[in-house]
């Protein structure tokens, strides 16, 4: 659990730092974000499939419970 708390602290600290540190990006400066390669997940079809494979092969499948995915009993 301690690792978990540590993680939460790291994430919160990161959040605070970035909210303070990041410079405003004007709407007209955001052209690069329109590029498909800049999407958070450029290949969602493929990553959903990989997540299903990982989920049925690894213990840390939690977090996508609501994706369905079935038993993966094999």
């Amino acid at each position, binding site marked *: 659990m301690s690792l978990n708390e540590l993680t939460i602290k790291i994430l919160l600290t990161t959040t605070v730092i970035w909210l303070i540190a990041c410079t405003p990006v004007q709407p007209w400066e955001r052209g690069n974000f329109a590029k498909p390669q800049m999407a958070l997940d450029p290949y969602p079809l493929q990553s959903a499939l990989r997540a299903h*494979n990982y989920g049925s092969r690894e213990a840390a499948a939690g977090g996508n419970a*609501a994706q369905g995915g079935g038993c993966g009993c094999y």
Partner: protein
Amino acid sequence: MRGGKSLPHPRPLPKGERTVRFSPTEVGVFKAHLSLRVLTAAALILPGLLQPPAQAADDDEVAFQYSHYQEGRREMFGSVSQFNPIEVESVHGGGKFTLTDRVKFAFNYTQDTWGGATPIATLPQAFNGNHDVIDYSISPDTKVGASPYLSPGSVLFDKNLHPVQRINDPNGIGEFNGAFFRRNNQLVHTLSMASPEVRKQGDFKLGYEWDESALDIGGGVSIEDDYESRFGNINTRWDFNQKQTTLNVGLSYTHSSIHSILDHDAWPYFHKDEKYDNLTILEENGGTHLISGTKQDWSAQMGLTQVLNKNAVLEASLGYTRSAGYMENPYKAVNVAFIDPTAQDPNSSCPEAAIDLVCGNINAVMEQRPDERNQWLGGLRYVQHIEPLDAATHLGYRVFSDDWGITSHTLDADWVQPMGQGWTITPRVRYYSQDAADFYTPYLFSPQGEHSNVIDDKGRQVMLDNDSFDPEKAPHYFFDPNTGQYFDEQNNDVTDAANNGELTLFNQTQLFDRKKLPQHFSSDHRLSGYGALSGGVTLSKQFAKGISLDLDFEYYTHQGSLKIGGGGEGSFADFDYWTVNAALKVDLAALAFSSGHKQPHQAHHHPGHAPAGVMFDHMLPKAGDMMVGYRYQWSSQGGAMLNGLNAVDNPSIIAGGCSGNPCYMTPDSMAMHMHMLDLMVAPTDWLTLMLMPQFMDMNMSLRGLSTEVINLGNLNGHYGHHVQNGHETGGIGDLGMYALFKVLDGNSHHLQVTAGFSAPTGDVDIQMRRNHQTDGGFIHYGMQLGSGTWDFKPSITYSGQIEQVSWGAQASGTLRMEDQNKSGYKLGDIFQATAWGGYNLTPWLTASVRGVYTTQGGIEGEYPGAHSDSANLFINADGSPTSILKFGPMDYSQNYGGKYGDVGFGLSASVPSGNFAGNGVSVEWLQPVYTNVNGYQLGRDGTLSFTWSYGF
């Protein structure tokens, strides 16, 4: 990515306004706003955290995906498993649509078919768990398979409980009675084989967007034979800080139910307990062992996405999932080494104790996991644009921790490199490491006998009379080891009777005490400590007109030695797999935008379109046109068995359905689902080329024919498997390739000729798994996924239309171009004639009536090797073994083919304008009116066809 909103507008522009021209400054604003849309859209798909990632952009899109998963062979340390590793074939189709400016709808359908060998338990290799099944009738060296052998019985350990093996080599750790011994700590999995099984999942999402926030609700269902889950989720999104910051919060719930029928073939090999194993024994169903349970998962997720600068985005996420209920895998067992401290007497119970060995007994119990699991997840994701190369890199880290003792770390990175002309290449790598669950163990020790003598409260051994078999009702006797006296229940001394043989008494024994085992245990290697390294590449090509094709490959290796900090599970649990997948995406918004006219041409969606069940009925009107379509067909068979035109009863099937061989069972119902992709392109005005990949799945339920009529022989055991569970197959089918030639293209009359080939990409060698030491043999001919031969498929189609009335006729054939496929047979040729008439109820809706006549020849040839390479074959009624591994009429080639008449009723709609212009959907029901089968076959219920197409 071509959105229509621009910043100054408080509301999104209607779709129709997409085609307005922008001034250069407006273009800047437009582009800038694109970034917002991409960003907010991207924020919606926080991988693994919020609702299932649907598609990256929120433009209207239709996507199809096929994937193949192939596991490598497991290391069996000398014993050869003839089971094939796990293979999974998946197909996915989905779409998302803008219903109104602010309302979006998305749906997905996924289907997996899997089969192959999977570990069910772990044992020391010294105990010879996966031993080969030897066919001594051929020779002592002929191995015909390896059985899941969970309980080797008595085993030996050294004083430190290292497993000990008997060897022929005198250089071991000791000798006893001419036998030699050595320590062997090597562990090995026991593998079991699963026949193909199918999972189907459908889900949807409905979203509403405000200017700076959004709400999505979604849900779905995933169905397997033994596992069903339903899920729902709700997600919200808020944009802050001029949309540089986005917060996502989501909640989801999953309810799963497990209904697993235990393989009775495996019953004798492990202990089952109704109290511990969620087990119900259904007496009325021949003692079926049913494991049932439910599981619920609640999940909360939160994600924050922040634009750091004009080239970088960071996302942080947190998630919590609470799972409660039945979390065991009903197909996994744990071996227990029972070592009875009171049974180590070198003079009786354990002769090997003379050389300091310890005697034990191995048996298996079903795994036990906690009924509760709390899981936490934290993640960071960073996206950086690499200016000089116009590439982007994604770096991710995830930490997971649960109260089962598992902590895992995941690192992943990719590089998305556009290469010009629509090509993008994306290499990626991922590393994962996890600790073992607290209750993971390869196998257990228990300091008690698997069976022990029952002792009464006076310290006397409880005895039973040899004549009585029911320990509850039988008279009990008692033996006092201190005095050597025997007593009966009335405390009379019966020592003389016991000693002179008048009474034959033996000890009453009891099974081990479950309470002395740990509360939770599992040998599932997914709960062990290990690391996994995977890498792959995605190659993507964006074609004109909004179509893109992605090809993806990945290799994954799971190794105990890759665990962070070492200490992972031994190499026996290592495995690897690779996957390939192909995805086709059609961006509907891009099409409408790029085509530059508000209404895509309607030529092939003209009212009067042929019914849904008719293929090759239209061509693309002019060179350069393309079309994407999806075609679904569901056929159902059921009702009585037919012979020719007539329904027949069981005795008739037994008498005639199996060529004089025993007839054990017969189909009760059968369903076939086909998903086909229709890809058309017109290189010239008079020629259209068409590619049609298919994905299919089938299931058949069976019923037994009267046991009074036949002797089931050793099929008796086999029988239950097939009647209880039915048979399923699924996967990729044959690939169709066609050329359509325009012969006549008048205003009212059209004539076209099609020449095509079907490539044998579907499996024709699917076999059922081994049961009762008997091979399952090839599955029924009708459940293989393809023809196995190259087929020639010509057709000629005429259609006409005057005002509201349309009509058409088609003749088509399927001719097998090879004498036999690789499984030794060929399907019969098919000829079909059909004619239809339609009437336009409205300008966009057509109703149709159709008649179809089909004739198909019988199967020539049959499966090789008389269906079995095993010596353990079915038994004839007279007790003699038979080499026939056939269950019933569906396994005899003469019971295929026939003549069929059907009447079809259909509706076709095409969308003439608006958001969905260019889309066409049709549905048709084919009702059988005449069925004349060859031999003995199941009757027909009908066929439903559905098509969707989009032309541009």
